[in-house]
């Protein structure tokens, strides 16, 4: 019983607490204005680290991730809007750099296919149920 409890606590620490400890943002990168810092963090969380690919630059300790975090903060200080920063980055690295790509023609399949599959799945289940009901009757 204690072993199970300890395992649960360990898994909880691994999955919930350690990611916050290993946040890659260095204290010297922080902007003094908390509002601007919050904006920088929000943008960084949506920017893919192109070295690690499955991490955002907010989580990644790769050198490029740090360079991009600094660049984003400098752009914010320079008066850039969030959209202008996203455009700056996608112009250079493509839509792949966004962890949540914007909806446009080239990304339409990415956004619409899950819904199409969902509708299709519901249709298949509905048809299957209809058939089984008939057999029961």
């Amino acid at each position, binding site marked *: 019983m204690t072993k199970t409890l300890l395992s649960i606590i360990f898994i909880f620490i691994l999955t919930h607490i350690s990611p916050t400890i290993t946040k890659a943002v260095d204290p010297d990168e922080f902007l003094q204005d908390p509002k601007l810092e919050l904006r920088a963090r929000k943008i960084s969380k949506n920017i893919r680290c192109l070295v690690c690919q499955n991490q955002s630059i907010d989580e990644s300790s790769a050198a490029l991730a740090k*360079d991009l975090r600094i660049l984003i903060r400098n752009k914010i200080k320079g008066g850039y809007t969030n959209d202008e920063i996203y455009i700056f980055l996608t112009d250079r690295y493509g839509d792949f750099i966004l962890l949540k790509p914007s909806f446009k023609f080239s990304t339409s399949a990415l956004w619409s296919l899950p819904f199409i599959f969902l509708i299709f799945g519901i249709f298949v289940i509905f048809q299957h149920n209809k058939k089984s009901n008939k057999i029961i009757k």
Partner: protein
Amino acid sequence: MKKKLSIFPSILFFLILLSFFYLLISDRNPSKLPSTFIDKPVPIFKAKTLIDNKTFISTEEFGQETTLVNFFATWCKPCVEELVFLKKLASKNELKIIGVNYKDNSNKTVKWLKELGNPYSKILIDSNALIGIDWGVYGIPETFIVNSKGIIKYRLIGPITEKNYDEFYVKIKESEK
């Protein structure tokens, strides 16, 4: 009609499965990202040059002859191996090679080039990776082929090696077509 309906989902499922397997076994390498700059003009930027300490203005440097832009650093091991092939290309006198010294120590770079040989006509200092970001670079070495009209025609991620040298040279020739 009813039979058709029950077969259709299975066919669709297998088609999706097939496309996933195709992507798995095809040559697609997810670590090699396509450049957004292909067939576009070179980014506009300014930089300080190494050795002669002059200002490099991109609008004045591209658009006259075929140019290679090579991002390198002394701390990057594949860059050492690549240097042999860059020197081979430079010796042909068919193109200009601009080196971008990415996040490096300038003194160390000068020493390094004296020791191993310098294939570059100009070397730009990119100590904070801003030129790299402007070109969409995410790891070095990376080499861009810019044609005589100042248009980026090809990007090589990774070093020029014995294996890809001939193919890369063909790309240089093709950039002017």
